[in-house]
């Protein structure tokens, strides 16, 4: 699987045309500005300046030899020729070179032809008379766009930015400063796709790779944008995890994309410590179009999901921690399974006050009696503005980027979104930090730690659509139906383990 650097390097072929800068000797001199061995001053430069007739004559001769003159200045001629002409005229051998990029840099071209250090060098004798020197020009790097797109746009309303706002509000900064960043922990995120060559990710040097689940295509593409965006939440929380994105989508033939189960099967080939999934199903009656027809909760799992249920149970029993979103008004499966850690939502206003997100689900499962969702909460926006809450990077011009209403451009590679899709990777990142400190923790241990250390959220209510009785679960002092124990506090959690 190529990483993003490999992809950059192989996208453009080396051109067979070489671009040459040629300097001329001064009038009556054997040297020009490149080979001149004395001190360069304004006077010597003026003496070395070729006259117009010399430039014209040299240009004509170079043209006869196979160069195409593209421009000329006071001291130089710019010309192009084929690789073969250059090798013949200079008695050398050109080989393909690749520029050593820093991550995130972009160049005019990244492969080009140039003589190796030990290549022969036997230029035509007459060059010693008519030119000072000739150098193949390397492709240039765009210094003004070292990390293009890495800075998010500005929007006028209250929102959070990654990584800083998310780590601050989940109290992870102190843990990071103590050296716990998720190193050595392998986390798989299963989602639409992963455009990890976005400058937001490359500029931070995250360790990521993308693998394809059955039926998914093009590991560098995320036509929806969901997976790329939500990955930023996870990597904000645990920047040094070994991140594996399992792509489900097939942008060309969507119905051929992978199922969640196929994604989990692929994930387990990589022996992850944590799996994060911001996808699921709504356990309420639907019509033939898949639209919910009632808020009544299903009391039994549809047969179509039994294999998925069995596999998640087996994965959890193997010791892998599985995190699912609780849903955005959905009665979410697999988020309701007792074996998974279910991520709900808390909204933190500009002034720091916390309330239950009325966009996030909270419910008591009828399929698994006694199971209350969520287990703990991440950061999720409010329903009044469609949960536009966290500015996240995604593939420019992807489906989510093109949608209106969040104040960002349709093709700028940024969108303001959230939902419990954001909460699950935040919790998965928090869990990776816990496993960094204590690799022996089980899912039950982690739920217990969240119970004891999360910040209590005492106001607001969860999404009414997730509660059968119409009226969202109410938050209150202590553990409550809307937020469970409340908003995850990573510093407090790690102090307990």
């Amino acid at each position: 699987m190529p990483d993003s650097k490999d992809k950059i390097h192989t996208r453009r072929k080396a051109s067979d045309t070489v671009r040459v800068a040629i300097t001329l000797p001064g009038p009556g001199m054997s040297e020009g500005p490149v080979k001149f061995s004395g001190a360069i001053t304004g006077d010597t430069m003026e003496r070395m300046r070729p006259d117009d007739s010399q430039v014209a004559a040299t240009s004509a001769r170079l043209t006869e030899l196979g160069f195409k003159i593209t421009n000329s200045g006071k001291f130089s001629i710019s010309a192009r020729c084929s690789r073969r002409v250059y090798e013949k005229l200079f008695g050398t051998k050109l080989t393909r070179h690749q520029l050593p990029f820093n991550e995130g840099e972009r160049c005019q071209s990244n492969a080009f032809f140039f003589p190796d250090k030990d290549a022969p060098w036997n230029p035509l004798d007459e060059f010693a008379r008519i030119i000072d020197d000739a150098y193949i020009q390397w492709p240039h790097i765009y210094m003004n766009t070292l990390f293009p797109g890495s800075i998010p746009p500005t929007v006028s309303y209250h929102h959070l930015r990654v990584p800083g706002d998310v780590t601050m509000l989940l109290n992870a900064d102190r843990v990071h400063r103590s050296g716990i960043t998720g190193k050595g922990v392998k986390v798989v995120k299963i989602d639409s796709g992963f455009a990890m060559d976005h400058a937001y990710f490359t500029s931070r040097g995250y360790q990521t790779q993308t693998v394809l689940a059955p039926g998914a295509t093009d590991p560098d593409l995320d036509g929806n944008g969901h997976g790329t965006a939500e990955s930023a939440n996870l990597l904000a929380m645990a920047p040094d995890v070994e991140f594996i994105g399992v792509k489900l989508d097939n942008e060309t033939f969507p119905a051929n994309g992978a199922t969640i189960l196929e994604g989990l099967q692929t994930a387990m080939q990589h022996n992850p410590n944590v799996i994060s999934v911001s996808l699921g199903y709504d356990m309420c009656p639907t019509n033939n179009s898949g639209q919910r027809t009632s808020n009544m909760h299903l009391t039994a799992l549809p047969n179509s999901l039994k294999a998925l249920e069995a596999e998640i149970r087996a994965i959890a029993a193997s010791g892998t921690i599985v995190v699912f979103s609780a849903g955005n008004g959905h009665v979410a499966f697999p988020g309701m399974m007792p074996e998974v850690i279910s991520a709900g939502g808390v909204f933190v206003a500009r002034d720091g006050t916390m309330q239950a997100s009325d966009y996030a689900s909270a419910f008591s499962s009828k399929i698994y009696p006694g199971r209350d969702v969520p287990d703990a909460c991440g950061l999720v926006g409010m329903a009044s503005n469609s949960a536009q809450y966290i500015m996240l990077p995604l593939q420019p011009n992807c489906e989510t980027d093109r949608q209106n209403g969040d104040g960002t451009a349709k093709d700028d590679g940024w969108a303001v979104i959230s939902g419990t899709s954001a909460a699950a990777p935040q919790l998965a990142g928090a869990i990776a930090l816990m496993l960094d400190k204590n690799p022996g923790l089980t899912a039950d241990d982690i739920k217990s730690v969240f119970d004891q250390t999360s910040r209590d959220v005492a106001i607001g209510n969860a999404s009414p659509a997730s509660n059968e009785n119409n009226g969202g679960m109410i938050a209150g002092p202590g553990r409550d139906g809307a937020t469970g124990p409340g908003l995850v506090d990573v510093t407090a959690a790690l102090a307990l383990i």
Partner: protein
Amino acid sequence: MIKFSISLNGRGQSEEARLQIVEFLAEHGIKRTGGGFVTLSFVAEPEAFGAVFGSALQSLPDPPPRPRGTVGASGQFEEPEITVPEELEPFVDSVSVSPSARHFSGSV
């Protein structure tokens, strides 16, 4: 195409049983796409699925364009009558035709 998964019972989880299942379905043109601890996933043409499991299913259509707030494909659940062939019966707990999932950045 129809994507479906088989949940394996204890006997079906052995390597030998898995191979037997995969080979039986391959004879009907059904291709294995993945496997986990207790499941195997497959993709089949509707005709092949119907021939093996006695159920007339159509391929799921591609999801339509979605407005903001309803990100993700529909979550409808087809509950077809599925008859597990006797060759697979000793190994199979259940057969699930996979529905499309929702992305949880959009609401109900």
